[in-house]
């Protein structure tokens, strides 16, 4: 397996009135080509901030203060890693939604209520695939069955030839200023809509032609979540970051969405970074799992190892705190609360709640060390 994404000592801080919230404290994780990596943890542990830092969309007052986010987009060429944090905003913009895309947590907030579904899905085609679409339209214009008024056809062929070569050409910008002439773009929008209908239909939504004309408030929660997934998958990304893609949905709808992601992973996308707080979802969908606690990655392992022989006391406690199907007796719980990240505890951040806390835990933060094949843990016990 080759690496697709690697974060090295990622540090993100939020500068609030109460002080500096140290949301990410040197997070290093690796996602391979063709795998599903699960990131679990309680709320406020930095899962979503990790995802946002990778995409470089951390909002004010947050700042990415250190580390690297390296992506190896080409599976063959190991040397071609790009550090996203060093690149220009324009470069990352070209990548976002195209090679790397994200499903956001709350479909109500992720969709624009004033735009129709079709327009929202088309947006990413119009942004990332202008060239391909112009080339496709040009082909159609030259095709035999294209019946358009002859001079108009000639004009459109000329414009689209220009656009297929360079969609940002100055001549096109001038044309856009002229009334009537600017209608040449209609074909482009139509093509984008055609592609939207195709992708929406692919996600198992019935009657996609009607759905794209509707607005978000017309759809149910599960439907909206599918549209958000459709937008994320529009340009067949290499890496899909799913931030709590199923948390707000009902059990039966959640089962539908997970089934869909599993199917899509086989067909379209290469890798998924799945962020969730539900250990059940992780057990069913992921290959590798990272457990986060208070801004630190405390354990990374293959999914089987993590559930059967977890090492970190926090992981163990978390697994015991979840109600299971085959369960007798009382649930165990973790005493205390998640620490405040403005003043995190010194040393290991879990030590105030840890049953095995030692003297050294209060002073020194443990590093992630590899215990056995591919199982790393950050704890002084090992």
């Amino acid at each position: 397996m080759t690496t697709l994404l690697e974060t090295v000592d990622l540090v993100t801080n939020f500068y609030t009135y109460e002080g500096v919230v140290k949301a990410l404290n040197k997070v290093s994780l690796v996602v391979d080509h063709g795998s599903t990596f699960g990131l679990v943890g309680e709320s406020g542990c930095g899962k979503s901030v990790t995802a946002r830092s990778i995409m470089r969309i951390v909002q004010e007052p947050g700042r990415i203060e250190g580390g690297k986010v390296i992506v190896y987009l080409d599976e063959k060429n190991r040397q071609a890693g790009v550090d996203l944090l060093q690149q220009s905003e324009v470069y990352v913009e070209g990548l976002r939604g195209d090679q790397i895309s994200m499903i956001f947590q709350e479909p109500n907030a992720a969709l624009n209520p004033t735009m129709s579904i079709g327009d929202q899905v088309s947006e990413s085609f119009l942004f990332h695939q202008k060239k391909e679409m112009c080339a496709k339209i040009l082909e159609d214009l030259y095709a035999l069955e294209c019946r358009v008024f002859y001079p108009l056809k000639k004009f459109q062929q000329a414009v689209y030839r220009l656009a297929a070569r360079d969609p940002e050409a100055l001549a096109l910008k001038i044309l856009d200023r002229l009334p009537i002439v600017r209608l040449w773009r209609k074909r482009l929008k139509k093509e984008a809509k055609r592609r939207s209908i195709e992708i929406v239909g692919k996600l198992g939504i019935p009657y996609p032609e009607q759905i794209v004309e509707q607005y978000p408030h017309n759809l149910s929660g599960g439907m909206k979540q599918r549209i958000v997934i459709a937008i994320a998958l529009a340009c067949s990304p290499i890496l899909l970051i799913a931030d709590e893609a199923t948390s707000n949905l009902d059990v039966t709808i959640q089962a539908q969405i997970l089934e869909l992601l599993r199917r899509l992973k086989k067909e379209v996308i290469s890798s998924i970074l799945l962020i969730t707080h539900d250990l059940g979802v992780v057990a069913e969908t992921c290959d590798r799992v990272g457990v986060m606690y208070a801004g630190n990655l405390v354990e990374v392992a293959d999914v089987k190892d993590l559930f059967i022989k977890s090492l970190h006391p926090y992981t163990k406690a978390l697994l015991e705190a979840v109600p299971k199907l085959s369960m007798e007796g009382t649930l165990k719980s973790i005493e205390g609360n998640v620490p405040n990240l403005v003043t995190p505890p010194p040393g290991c951040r879990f030590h105030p709640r840890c049953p095995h806390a030692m003297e050294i835990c209060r002073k020194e933060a443990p590093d992630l060390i590899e215990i056995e094949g591919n199982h790393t843990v950050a704890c002084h016990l090992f």
Partner: protein
Amino acid sequence: MEKILELRELKKHYPILGGVLRREVNSVKALDGVDLDIYRGECLGVVGESGCGKTTAGKTIIRLHDPTSGMVYYYRKDKGPEVRIDIGSKKGSTLKKLGIRGKLQMVFQDPTTSLDPRMLVKHIIAEPIKEQVSLGGRELEHRVVRLLGLVGLTRDHLLRYPHEFSGGQRQRIAVARAIATDPEFIVLDEPTSALDVSVQSQILNLLKSLQETLNLTYLFVTHHLLVVKYMSHRTAVMYLGKIVEIARTEDIFSQSAHPYTHALLSGIPVPDVEHKQRRIVLSGDVPSPVNPPPGCRFHPRCPFTVDRCRDEEPPLEGVEAAHKAACHRKSEVEKLVRDRFGTHAQ
């Protein structure tokens, strides 16, 4: 087992107003004929998808909502011999005069919104007590401290505002407020869905121990089936304003007789890598409760629909003595599911 509450044909329809005169044009049938017995000292779990009427059921039982029709009988025992009172039709002031309001309490879903941000914890918990009895300041404070102790908080927390607490502690305060009036029956409306996993288990264990020490009866409303399995003795499964199956919790999980229950159970993601489960993925969404489908309400999504399901609504009838299901094919469901989706590999 003696009953504490009995629901008969309980209906709650929310009107949809339309036209220039804002007349009622249609209604959302949130509860559409629910029959239910709740026994003293049990924890009855109510599960279902969002919009199926779980919360409405809880709120209507304790008369936060007025039912459209139907009866809610409360068996009152504290003063002398047992009497049956229909609280569904009584006026609010009458209920208060009879002292029933304090006996039926509720814990809400999100403690951030259910606690007044401008009141001290002391006042939040004392408020329901003051409604019931008049006590002097010192004795009131004494009782509040005792309640805080019951839910695992201390005297130090008295003079603080809700925002100073974490989610789990806030839910503890909400529980303390609910038990302040010595209730017999508490509706727990998704008490842990806003909380983290590690805190969720704390609250669940707290609720369990309170039930034993204070001899409470719970109606536990949730969409999380594993939590219901942990908490409740009996479980009712709701779909579109109706109860489709009710049985002891073990029976629901091991030998459910309704296809919807099967689908719900198979949809739970299980935190166990060796457990490979069969999965019944239902197509489509829950239909709108404004115009529920005719016949069996589940038939458009049911994998085993026959003609009879489209025309005739199945009654909630017994499979066994304590196990009722509303399905025309309830005796064959187990076999149908096995043939179509394989066996449980538990």
